[in-house]
């Protein structure tokens, strides 16, 4: 447990907690982004460069923007602000603590946590690329095909819209 880990953990937890507690929806998304960035930094601290940068690229760069756009498109600033907190915070806290306790107990009692940790392998991006291109090439190709189809589909949908309105 190093100092850097503690700082990052506090940042992440504070960000995600603020995302649940803040009243303004856009503030919530920005706080959540801080949480995403904290998680990415935690990955980087574990020397998982690929996962860390992908986390920043996907969550900070795309998901946060998507969420913000969704809020702006649906949320009118003049609408009545509903209270963000539930009034039954005691019950909520109890449920949260119970879920945490069950999860912690399950993890402690499982067979996987009893085994000693294997020596940490030194994985770099080159090896991830090799694995994706050789061993897991079929899943990768299927994913690529699916995503390309989705991309082209999005373009086609955007193109058709103009004709309909006319």
């Amino acid at each position, binding site marked *: 447990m190093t100092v850097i880990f503690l700082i990052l953990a506090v940042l992440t937890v504070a960000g995600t907690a603020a995302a649940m507690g803040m009243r303004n929806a*856009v*503030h919530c998304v*920005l706080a959540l*982004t801080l949480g995403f960035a904290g998680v990415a930094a935690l990955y980087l601290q574990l020397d998982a*460069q*690929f996962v860390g*940068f*992908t986390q*920043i*690229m996907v969550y*900070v*760069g*795309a998901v*946060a*923007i998507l969420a*913000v*756009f969704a809020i*702006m498109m649906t949320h009118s600033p003049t609408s009545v602000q509903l209270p963000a907190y539930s009034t039954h915070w005691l019950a909520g806290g109890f449920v949260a603590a119970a879920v945490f306790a069950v999860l912690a107990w399950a993890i402690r009692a499982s067979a996987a946590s009893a085994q000693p940790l294997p020596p940490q392998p030194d994985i*770099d*991006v*080159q090896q991830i*690329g090799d694995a994706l291109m050789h061993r897991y090439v079929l899943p990768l190709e299927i994913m690529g095909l699916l995503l*390309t189809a989705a*991309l082209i589909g999005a*373009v086609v949908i*955007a*193109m058709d819209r103009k004709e309909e*309105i*006319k």
Partner: protein
Amino acid sequence: MTQTLDQIFVIALQRLLGLLPVAVRPLASAILCVVAILVVFPLLFAITTWLERKGLGRMQNRLGPNRTGPFGLLQPVADAIKSLTKEDIVPITADHVVHFLAPLVLVMAAFLAYAVLPIGRNMVLVNMNAGVLFFFAVGSTVELSVFMAGWSSRSKYSLLGAMRAVAQMISYEVPMVLATIVIIMEAGSLSTVAIVEKQAGYTGIFPHWFVFTPWGFMGFALFMIAATAESNRSPFDLPEGESEIIAGYYIEYSGFKFALFFLGEYLGMFATSGLAITLFLGGWSAPFSFLTWIPSYAWFFAKLLVLIGAFIWIRGTLPRLRMDQLMNLAWQYILPMALINMLVAGIWHFMPVGPIRWLVCSVLLAAPCVVLSFTLKRKKRLQVRTYYFAE
């Protein structure tokens, strides 16, 4: 002698670190390198503002700045003093915290991108395995800062500007990344240093830069178009179109914060140009084998200045695009071309070396380019425009 001149900054850093105790050396080395980047690139920004105003002035048949210093060279200093002494006005309805954070996030992201750019031989701040990935990850946070600026100002113009900017940046990030993939395929590495080393050899006097292959040339062209759009420069400067939405997302910023936005935008432009140099133009390597005696960092900055000059030239020449034209260009032309380019790069890799490979790949790229241009042109029916989003 040539060797020493080439490595003079590396040697100077080693000497300087030698004076310090061993325990603080890694930290001191990092701080010194960061300070060097923090000094050099803002200086380049100052020079570029002068160059841009002078160049645009010449293109528009006027003189440009000529009152401060010889040839107006001290104009950036005057600008800096002016922006520092101006009052910092924050709109009363603005979201103060987010309004304050937006320019900081932008400049921070812009500076972070320089960490992986090899400026010269052995001159890179961090040589990481996932260098290109890092560059794009950092670049994607710029969009968030633009949104923060536009939203927190609580102004129609800034919100419209931010929406335009974010839509444009997301649209052009896709072809930009796809255009770099051909390089990663051929170099077999995501590390910027390894990519530059891959291009360092010479055949006769000519270098092995990726731009001198059909797919490399196409990739470079697509990358530069996308880079122009990413840095919100003319002809893609809709987010700050003065005649429509005044200054876009940073309209409510004044004084030093406005200067920070300007700095962030230019730093972003330099960083993407630097990445283009690294990926396509051989990084710090010399354009001819008999010119290798000139230090590597001089070549990097020479190439950077050439690209900046091209950016200024384009800004002075082309009119601004309309929003639908901008989106159509990205999704209907640049994106398909980038996908075809990837295919051609694969074919190039597996064909035997020789002129036939050149011919086949050039035809495979030129044909879709022409066909796509003509089909898109024919689809345009010129008629009275109907506005369906505004009355």
